[in-house]
């Protein structure tokens, strides 16, 4: 055959057409095969059958039911025990998920010079407010802390680099930093829940691991009716019924963080 330019172009054109048609033919060929051979089921990931979900979890704390320190203590203990929260010897290195504080510290913009004696000496339980507009999430450089689909402000300890921006951003002091390895200071390890390591920030997770199996947070269970927990966006939920029929306040809500923990004083 004469190797002229014309012949070369003809062969090149036909070859290109053939290459272009191959994927089309492959598709037809494979679809016929698939009909015969049943593909094995792909592994899939899902929620547990009993998981409780809500667009925004919220909590109401009725402080009128608190009579003394011994009413708050069980909530703190229940939480810190199941989440392996260490008891650090030095107060400067304290780790806390939920703790007790005075009204003037919890609500500095509401505390008056003179207040009712009950409120003045009240020991309030405070914890992460799981804000709908969380400042800690905005500042986190690695997205280690984030707001999940349930409105819970979560910590992904795998990603935390320990920069502590979130601690600076949180106006509630809800976050603690592990300056040291927390393990030696955990009295009784709950083997069902991971511990943390040195160099990460930790905080309350609204018991996401319990909600996943259909149980309310540990502090709520231990609170003897002081705390209520439920879906903030559902008008028939327990928390909404309480909020709708009582005067409630939230901590530092003038900052625009939209906290999800409500207090009845």
């Amino acid at each position: 055959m004469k190797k002229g330019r014309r012949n070369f172009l003809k062969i090149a054109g036909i070859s290109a057409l053939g290459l272009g048609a191959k994927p089309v033919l492959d598709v037809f060929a494979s679809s016929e095969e698939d009909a015969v051979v049943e593909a094995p089921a792909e592994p899939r990931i899902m929620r547990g059958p009993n998981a409780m979900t809500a667009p925004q979890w919220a909590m109401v704390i009725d402080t009128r039911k608190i009579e003394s320190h011994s009413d708050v203590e069980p909530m703190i203990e229940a939480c810190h025990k199941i989440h392996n929260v260490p008891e650090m010897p030095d107060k400067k290195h304290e780790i806390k998920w939920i703790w007790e504080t005075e009204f003037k510290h919890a609500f500095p913009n509401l505390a008056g010079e003179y207040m009712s004696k009950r409120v003045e000496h009240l020991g309030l339980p405070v914890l992460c407010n799981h804000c709908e507009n969380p400042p800690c999430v905005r500042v986190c450089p690695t997205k280690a802390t984030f707001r999940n689909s349930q409105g819970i402000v979560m910590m992904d300890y795998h990603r935390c680099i320990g920069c502590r921006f979130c601690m600076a951003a949180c106006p509630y002091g809800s976050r603690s930093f592990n300056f040291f390895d927390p393990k030696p200071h955990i009295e009784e390890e709950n083997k069902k829940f991971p511990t943390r390591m040195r160099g990460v920030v930790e905080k309350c997770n609204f018991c996401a691991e319990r909600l996943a199996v259909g149980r309310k947070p540990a502090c709520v269970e231990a609170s003897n009716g002081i705390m209520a927990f439920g879906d903030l966006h559902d008008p028939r939920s327990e928390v909404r019924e309480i909020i709708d029929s009582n005067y409630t306040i939230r901590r530092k809500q003038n900052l625009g963080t939209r906290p999800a923990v409500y207090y009845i004083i």
Partner: protein
Amino acid sequence: MPSNNQKLYDKDKVIAGLVIFVVLATFPFWYNLGKAASAPELELTDKAKAAEKCVRDTQYMRNEHMQLLDEWRDTVVRDAKRIYVNERNMGYDMSLSNTCLDCHSNKEQFCDRCHNYTSVNPYCWDCHIDNPKEAK
């Protein structure tokens, strides 16, 4: 045209140097010849033996358990989905401590042997306790 009888100056020294270099460069290879560490033997706990099948088949677990665990930790923490249904339609709680280490409770004879052999040092156990039986 270069002539064929070009002279190699200091022939003895150059060749001796080359021989020394080759010997030194290949030293690790022939020194360790025949001394390869044998692949570790893994021990299964009675519970793991009784279960017979892991979350996925053995070969998959051996090759890709790290990718599987990585996917698990992301979906549990970030997507709040905690159940893994495998291709045999069996559901598992996606938890290193409570699922994996429940059967493979012999970390030293199971996890560590391969990790040491391949010289990898995963930091899972910094937080996830080798649940539940191993004495500390």
